[in-house]
């Protein structure tokens, strides 16, 4: 009985940390998007929007390398995209954290499941499937 209680307590602690991690990720990444948005609007407010037809070749920030390059030159749209990138990584970081916590709990089946999810995302991240 005492061992199951201890386990529940562990689970609860992990869940609290997970929740905090998610919220912090959302707040930080949305703040970056907001800052990038302000810079973007100051520079482009008079521009004309054109989203009628999907033109993937016109996208300047469709890779992580391009986004970082744009952030270094302080471009508003690159900073927005960087914030979005951080937002995308928030739930992924949550899985990484879950893998560690299951490792501590010695629940190797769920360590494996966590790795499978990360593998699926990594494969799509490398863009091998997207092109």
């Amino acid at each position, binding site marked *: 009985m005492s061992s199951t209680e201890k386990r529940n307590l562990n689970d*609860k602690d*992990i*869940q*609290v940390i*997970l*929740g*905090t991690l*998610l*919220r912090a*990720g*959302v707040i930080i*990444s*949305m703040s970056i*998007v*907001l800052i*990038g*948005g302000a810079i*973007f*609007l100051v520079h*482009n*407010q*008079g521009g*004309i*929007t054109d*989203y*009628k037809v*999907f033109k*993937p070749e*016109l*996208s300047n920030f*469709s*890779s992580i390398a391009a986004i970082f390059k744009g952030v270094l030159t302080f471009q*508003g*749209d690159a900073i*927005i995209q960087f914030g*979005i*990138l951080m*937002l*995308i*990584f*928030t*739930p*992924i970081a*949550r*899985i990484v954290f*879950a893998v560690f916590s299951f490792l501590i709990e010695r629940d190797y*089946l*769920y360590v494996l*499941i*966590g790795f*499978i*999810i990360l593998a*699926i*995302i990594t*494969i*799509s*991240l490398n*863009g091998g*499937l*997207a092109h």
Partner: protein
Amino acid sequence: MSVLLFTIIVLLGAFLAGLLGSLTGLGGGVIIIPLLTLALGVDIHYAIGASIVSVIATSSGSAAAYVKEGITNIRIGMFLEIATTVGAVCGAIVAVYLNANYIAIIFGCILIFSAIMTLKKKVDHSTLDESDKWAKFFKLNGSYPDKGIEHKYAVKHVPGGFLMMLFAGTLSGLLGIGSGALKVIAMDNIMRLPFKVSTTTSNFMMGVTAAASAVVYLHRGQIDPGIAMPVCIGVLTGASLGSKVLLKTKTDKLKIVFAIVVTFLALQMIYKGISGL
């Protein structure tokens, strides 16, 4: 349209979408996409890319609150995430090659289905029968606290639920939505989870599922900063306000009015899609 005006209109629209989406349980994504495509003439590929980003923001933001209450079953969530992420990546890849008109038609159908689902009375199918061997193997059975009492529950029909999640994930990746309505079917009706556990766990999974397809969209240039910025800020603030209002008000009438509006939007999308073929 000038960039500033476009940003302000989308910001307001996304705020409303997030607010109504959280009040009715429909989600912000399914409302912002018709708004962008029908009212502002944005190509559906861009609308989907922006919507998926807002799905990550709202689900991660509210998952934080649920996880702390200890209702989310992380094991069920992670186990089913295998299905939803595989589906999401496949759906996102298909979306890249699919004609915008076909996407609009599929979207319209799912929108009508989701609207009907929000009106249907929920029936609690939860059970204590722990006979499912898959549930035992993956340690999915659990308990949740409610008013100081621990309620136990057992999970049934794991393979069926897994398959349904694969489908939900595919639609999520294809259409850029959380596909909460389908996840509820998989968890409530097939796997027999109690509401409290299924809604929070499905929300918890949405972030990872959306992240898997967002990665594909990003590579394809479907996430445009000019649209994604006002959409995710607007939907997130609207949804946060909605979840606060939700605790104090009854939403039955709102749901009916909203289901009618959404069905109208859906028919318009289907019509536009068919006439564009």
